């Protein structure tokens, strides 16, 4: 038999002004199972809590109802007090008679009746409450970081510097990501590689960082604190342990005319290559699609010249399993492709700009490679078509971004700034040249950003034209730009030598496939979704997985680095305890009733439902039932409402509890 204690709070006068608390306490005292009821001015104060604790001990109370404010306010307070008095905290419930009663009603009679009913409801509920033990899960204090761009590098270094092991996985042969491709960075114009490469070297040399380049995530199993990640190491055809990075293989490789993706395909590389000289690791990869040996079975020059004998044509893809406790996703962005329509994608390209047909219409990243001192032109701005220096250059903003018609409605955030930077770099390198920018709005919020943009106009003499461009076409060796200036209200025509399109930022190709492996959600553009737009911006709704950088939305470098450090801090918070404690509001399966239809598994957004085999003593399979992993379950209860045989129950919200409440009305 339960001995329920009910405590009615006055909340100063907040409740007692409209609710006759004494009457409520008296009425409730008569309810079956209630052995103690009282009212007090401030239940949440120290004397109030002591009143509660003493009553539990003196009256030998088994269940508690506190009628006061919203449980969102003080449920934790009272459950803690109850626990201190030796009761299981989940045997305490709150009845909300402030926000849902005294504050929203004026009639004292009505409010008192309602308050009594609310308390009565909770009394019936608490009778059915069970002792719930706190759930603890062990934490593997190793972290996986997916993506070796600036976001991944920053997160990996922060976590590793804290003394925890990090597994860093990068798809390309080298870490560095897009930032390594950039020439100079806004708003300070410092050289991107100068600030990037030391960090890349730090990663390579860090004793706590295990680096997998040219590798991809194959499979993710487990849950917060206990993930098992299968990584596919693609065959490099070069033994990383033996290779000394001398580079002789690359100088001798006869295939020298392969467009280098790192240089936006305007520079060339060999078939055995590192994408750029400062690559980390400095171990080459053989591009099997373009290698003569793989195509014809002949050549093998690289193998012959390799002193340490590192070239291995027989190497196979390898699968490695790494146990980790947390995952930071930092897969970054990809540039919008102007001239093609990817299959099955709602994104459309722009035929009117002739990109891909007119060689001197390039995108912003290609301009970065042209302007980069280590780029294919050694930092000279030269046209891809004839290698001449463009004297009139036109930049067009918002290509793909803010273009609902093309399938992207969002602003890519960085283009206004990088275009302003481009005009400056151009002016620094081509003194007698003129830069024009067609734009809609200049969006430059950020420290020293607007000043930077204004400088490009006022000091670096870029001409900004508010208006868009309808079409580009080749006329002789010029590109005719058909634009408009909406401020003046006239059409503008410029015969340019080169046109740079500021293309939108999109998530990496295949971002949705990785999200499906990780069990995290993503938006309609395939950007990964954070748990809360404002208050949990670096966490995924799936526990133990964190986001850093442009995979979550368009971002510039400072923002990316901040988010990466924030994600690292979240990982470190998780790693600060050996065991993970969590609220025991989780679903449990009654195996006797479960028929193994797995309707619950289909509706579970967290992948918490597993299949469990039940065998007899001889080891014969009796049936397969559902099993809810308490480490993964978030406690939404959707499985319970879905279960056709009522064999799964959410602790704290059982059918019994709910029905008891309804019946109390």
């Amino acid at each position, binding site marked *: 038999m339960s001995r329920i204690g009910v405590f009615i709070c006055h909340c100063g006068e907040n409740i007692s002004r409209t609710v006759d608390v004494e009457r409520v306490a008296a009425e409730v005292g008569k309810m079956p199972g209630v052995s103690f009821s009282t009212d007090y001015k401030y239940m949440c104060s120290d004397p109030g809590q002591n009143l509660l604790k003493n009553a539990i001990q003196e009256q030998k109370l088994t269940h508690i109802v506190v009628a006061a404010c919203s*449980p969102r306010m003080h449920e934790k307070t009272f459950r803690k007090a109850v626990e201190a008095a030796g009761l299981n905290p989940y045997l305490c419930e709150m009845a909300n008679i402030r926000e849902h009663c005294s*504050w*929203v*009603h004026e009639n004292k009679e009505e409010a008192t009746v309602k308050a009594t009913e609310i308390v009565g409801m909770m009394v019936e509920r608490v009778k059915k409450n069970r002792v719930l033990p706190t759930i603890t899960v062990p934490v593997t204090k190793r972290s996986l970081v997916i993506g070796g761009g600036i976001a991944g590098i920053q997160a990996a270094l922060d976590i590793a510097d804290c003394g925890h092991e990090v597994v860093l996985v990068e798809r390309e042969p080298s870490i560095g990501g897009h930032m390594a491709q950039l020439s100079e960075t806004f708003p300070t114009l410092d050289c991107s590689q100068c600030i990037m490469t030391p960090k890349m070297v730090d990663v390579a040399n860090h004793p706590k960082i295990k680096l997998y380049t040219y590798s991809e995530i194959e499979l993710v199993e487990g849950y917060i604190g206990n993930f098992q990640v299968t990584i596919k190491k693609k065959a490099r055809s070069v033994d990383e342990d033996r290779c000394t990075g001398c580079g002789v293989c690359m100088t001798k490789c006869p295939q020298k005319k392969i467009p280098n993706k790192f240089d936006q395909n305007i520079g060339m590389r060999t078939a055995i290559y590192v994408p750029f000289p400062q690559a980390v690791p400095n171990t080459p990869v053989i591009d099997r699609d373009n290698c003569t040996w793989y195509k014809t079975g002949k050549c093998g020059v690289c193998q012959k010249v390799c002193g340490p004998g590192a070239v291995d044509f027989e190497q196979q893809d390898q699968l490695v399993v790494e146990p980790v406790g947390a995952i930071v996703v930092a897969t970054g962005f990809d540039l919008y492709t102007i001239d093609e329509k990817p299959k099955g994608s709602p994104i459309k390209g722009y035929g009117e700009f002739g990109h891909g047909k007119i060689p001197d219409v390039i995108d912003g990243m290609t301009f970065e490679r042209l302007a980069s001192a280590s780029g294919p032109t050694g930092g000279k701005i030269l046209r891809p078509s004839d290698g001449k220096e463009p004297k009139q250059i036109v930049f067009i903003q918002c290509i793909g971004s803010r273009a609902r018609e093309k399938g992207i409605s969002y602003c890519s955030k960085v283009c206004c700034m990088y275009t302003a930077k481009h005009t400056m770099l151009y002016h620094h390198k081509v003194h007698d040249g003129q830069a024009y920018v067609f734009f809609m709005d200049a969006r430059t919020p950020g420290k020293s950003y607007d000043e930077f943009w204004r400088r490009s106009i006022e000091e670096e003499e870029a001409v900004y034209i508010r208006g868009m461009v309808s079409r580009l076409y080749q006329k002789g060796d010029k590109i005719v730009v058909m634009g408009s200036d909406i401020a003046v209200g006239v059409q503008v025509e410029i015969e340019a030598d080169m046109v740079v399109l500021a293309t939108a930022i999109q998530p990496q190709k295949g971002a949705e496939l990785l999200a499906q492996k990780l069990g995290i959600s993503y938006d309609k553009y395939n950007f990964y979704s954070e748990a809360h737009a404002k208050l949990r911006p670096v966490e995924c709704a799936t526990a133990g997985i964190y986001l850093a950088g442009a995979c979550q939305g368009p971002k510039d470098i400072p923002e990316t680095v901040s988010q990466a450090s924030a994600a690292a801090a979240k990982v470190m918070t998780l790693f600060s305890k050996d065991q993970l404690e969590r609220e025991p509001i989780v679903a449990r399966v009654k195996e006797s009733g479960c028929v193994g239809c797995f309707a619950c598994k289909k509706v579970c957004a967290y992948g918490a439902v597993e299949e469990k085999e039940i065998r007899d003593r001889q080891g014969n399979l009796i049936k397969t039932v559902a099993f809810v992993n308490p480490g993964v379950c978030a406690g939404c*209860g959707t499985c*319970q*409402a*879905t279960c056709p045989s009522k064999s799964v129950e959410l602790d704290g919200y059982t059918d019994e509890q709910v029905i008891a409440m309804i019946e109390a*009305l």
Partner: protein
Amino acid sequence: MQPTKQNTFEPKIIAFVCTWCTYAGADLAGTSRMQYPSNVRVLKFPCTGRIDPVFILKAFQQGADGVLVSGCHPGDCHYIAGNFHARRRFAVFRKLLEFVGVDLNRLQFSWVSAAEGGKWVEVVTDLTEKVRSMGPMTEFKELAMEEQWSGAINTPELQEAYNSI
């Protein structure tokens, strides 16, 4: 609930809400001191996905005149997609309820976010007034009466009669 005035029908409204959005929205209505009819009783769930249609039936059976189910806006679910599952489930359930003979005007589904205290007040007030104008929900009560004649006897009247013997 007892009617506060004689001869006036005061409907009984039960609200099934999720804790993250609508419960918080109702809290906000409270902290903003908005006023609404006192007819509603709120049952808190972690998510609308947890709400079993059986609860709605049970509520009507227990004498509710109107039922409100309210959760996060589509796409805002704290549990990623619980409200979508709920929406799908209730779309089917409405048909069943209609078939059973319950006037669907007594059952309201809505989305009220944690920021929409005003909307909560509006939804609750509208439903209360609507149900008030429809009069008491009798279908289930009549059914229950029949059941009682067929066996289960524990109405207060009978109890009283029994006691007096």
